[in-house]
């Protein structure tokens, strides 16, 4: 299998889907040149009618995509930074997410919104470093965040083929990750988590770049004799509770490693599910390793003080191992 970059995998998924289906169009800010290399070149192959640079009007062009999707196109909208869901929030959670239901199923909205550069790319400050997928999933939008190039390609293809709005978060910290990608056409189904590492001591459910942090953490944990099993959730919603519970059934312990804000975040949802449906499997407290709910500071040392990382995962994973250990707080918010 060829090894390619995550951003390239996203590009390939778009190009292949556009070739396969003439109703797929791409629109967003600067998509013709493609600042991250993801949409670069598409305009050369598919022409300016299918690859559209928009004015800086996110609410307007998101609504436009909704209307176009209702009328049979399959728009793939790019948000160039993760702050843009805020300015188009009504279109996302109150329109795209609800119109089908409100109309009793008359309407389909086969639209994809790619939120690229999501999370803290590093040094972009408070307004450009959020990972806001919990907000969209909270409102019932199918929401995914792949961690590997193979999943980036396969999940984005599924998203394009799906007849509902699907929000794809492209973790800024994953864009340059390299990995093997299957040859030929494939689509990775939405809603299935994957066990990316086996281990019997503690389950770490992670998503996005936290999968890589968890993998790094697991090597350090090995040295302490703690064998971590890592589940890559891949999708925020639908959340594959089944795979999570099956892992917790093996380990009896759960850490959730997530780079969204802790409060009402993804880690909270995973924790709540397991504390409900998997309570009997648990032998220790559930530990969240997530962002403290504060804005992201610019200053590099401050930024690393709040973002969850491999070290935070290690600290988090030790906790359920140590019975009756009083909960100590790491500076990065992993309690």
């Amino acid at each position, binding site marked *: 299998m060829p090894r390619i970059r995550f951003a390239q995998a996203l590009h390939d998924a778009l190009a292949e889907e556009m070739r396969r289906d003439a109703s797929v*169009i791409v629109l967003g800010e600067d998509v013709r040149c493609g600042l991250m290399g993801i949409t670069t070149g598409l305009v050369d192959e598919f022409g300016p*009618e299918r690859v*559209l640079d*928009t*004015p800086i*009007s*996110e*609410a*307007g*062009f998101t*609504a*436009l*995509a*909704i*209307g*176009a*999707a*209702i*009328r*049979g*196109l399959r728009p793939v909208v790019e948000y160039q930074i993760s702050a843009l869901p805020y300015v188009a929030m*009504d*279109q996302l959670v*109150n*329109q795209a997410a609800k*119109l*089908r*239901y*409100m*109309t*009793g*199923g*008359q*309407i*389909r*909205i*086969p639209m994809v919104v790619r939120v690229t550069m999501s999370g803290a790319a590093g040094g972009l400050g408070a307004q450009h470093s959020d990972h806001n997928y919990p907000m969209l999933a909270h409102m*019932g939008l*199918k929401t995914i965040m792949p961690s590997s190039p193979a999943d980036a390609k396969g999940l984005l293809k599924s998203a394009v083929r*799906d*007849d*509902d709005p699907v929000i794809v978060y492209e973790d800024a910290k994953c864009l340059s990750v390299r990995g093997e990608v299957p040859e030929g056409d494939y689509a990775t*189904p*939405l*809603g*299935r988590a994957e066990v990316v590492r086996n281990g019997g001591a503690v389950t770490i459910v992670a998503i996005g770049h936290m999968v890589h942090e968890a993998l790094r953490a697991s090597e350090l944990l090995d040295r302490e004799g703690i064998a971590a099993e890592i589940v890559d959730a891949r999708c925020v*919603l*639908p*959340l*594959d*509770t*089944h795979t999570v519970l099956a892992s917790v059934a093996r380990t009896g312990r759960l850490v959730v490693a997530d780079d969204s804000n802790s409060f009402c975040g993804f880690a909270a949802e995973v924790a709540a599910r397991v504390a409900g449906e998997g309570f009997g499997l648990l032998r220790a407290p559930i530990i969240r390793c997530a962002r403290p709910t504060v804005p992201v500071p610019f200053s590099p040392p401050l930024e690393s003080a709040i973002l969850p990382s491999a070290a935070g995962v290690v600290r988090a994973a030790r906790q359920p191992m140590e019975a009756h250990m009083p909960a100590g707080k790491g500076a990065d918010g992993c309690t």
Partner: protein
Amino acid sequence: MEAANVPARTKLLQAHGLILLRRMLLIREFDARAGELLASGEIMGEIHQYIGQEAVAVGVLAGAGAEALVGSTHRGHGHLLARGCAPRPMMAELYGKASGYCKGKGGSMHITSLEHGMLGANAILGASAAIAVGAAFAEKTTQSSRVAVAFFGDGAANQGVLHESMNLAAVWKLPVLFVCENNQYAISLRADHGLSVRDVSSRAAAYGFDGRSVDGMDVLTVYEATCEALRRMRTSSLPFLLEAKTYRYHGHFSAEAAILKHPYRPEDEESVWQRRDPIARLRGELLAHGFVPQEELDALHGDVRAEVEDAVVFARQSPPPSADEAFTDVYATEVAGLPDGVR
């Protein structure tokens, strides 16, 4: 309508007068009856009556043609009926019945009939106009000649998304007829307290296309202005902004009078507008020209009332949806764990 146009108007009157009148009457009767049903507690929620504004929906949608794709508002009953949607599934929707256009899931603010080209009524101001721009985009992309009609109110005119949508429609040269129904108020806010310009239509210039304000109490004027706007859109390949000055006779929503302690509109204002009532005016002209005899008009009115009553009976007799229906139509593509998995 200037004197020089009278012959044209007379022709129009003769050709379309009766059908336009029927549609306006249907809207009025439907919304009057719906208001009663809500007041008596037989139906739930809130409705926004279109009474007084009938000439706008009827004139615009007759002028835009049956192929036009329509983005409607919270005050959408008029748009649907003007478009020829059926009173039965509309009324059933107000009753929350399974036989409603939206299986009862939508309700008054969301009645939609996609097969009629209605893209959806919408409870968020400005939202449906912005979505309609997308429909126009799809039509243009697929080389269809269908246009989109984007309704919004004088209040919604100050929503940011409309600015973005008008600019988008202009730079991408999309066939969108923006229609501002300026009924003088956004709930209790007088249009001129919310708007920094007298004529919303003057804002079209900010996007490089044309706009025009017309008497929205006269269905023939609205009809003609719409036809003219579409002609202009075809030659310019640009959107158009039509403003219809009109008035709603009732409260913003039907329960308003019960809620508000002080009226926000001057006492005699409604009667001033009532004197220009679009239905009375059209009826009067049809009679005066002898195009339709009084008896036929009376019969028409009776027919319309019967049609509305039939819709009420239909709605009453329809079964409610079953409780599991609450969990269907959430997603079009099933994915393991949804919607059940999210409970």
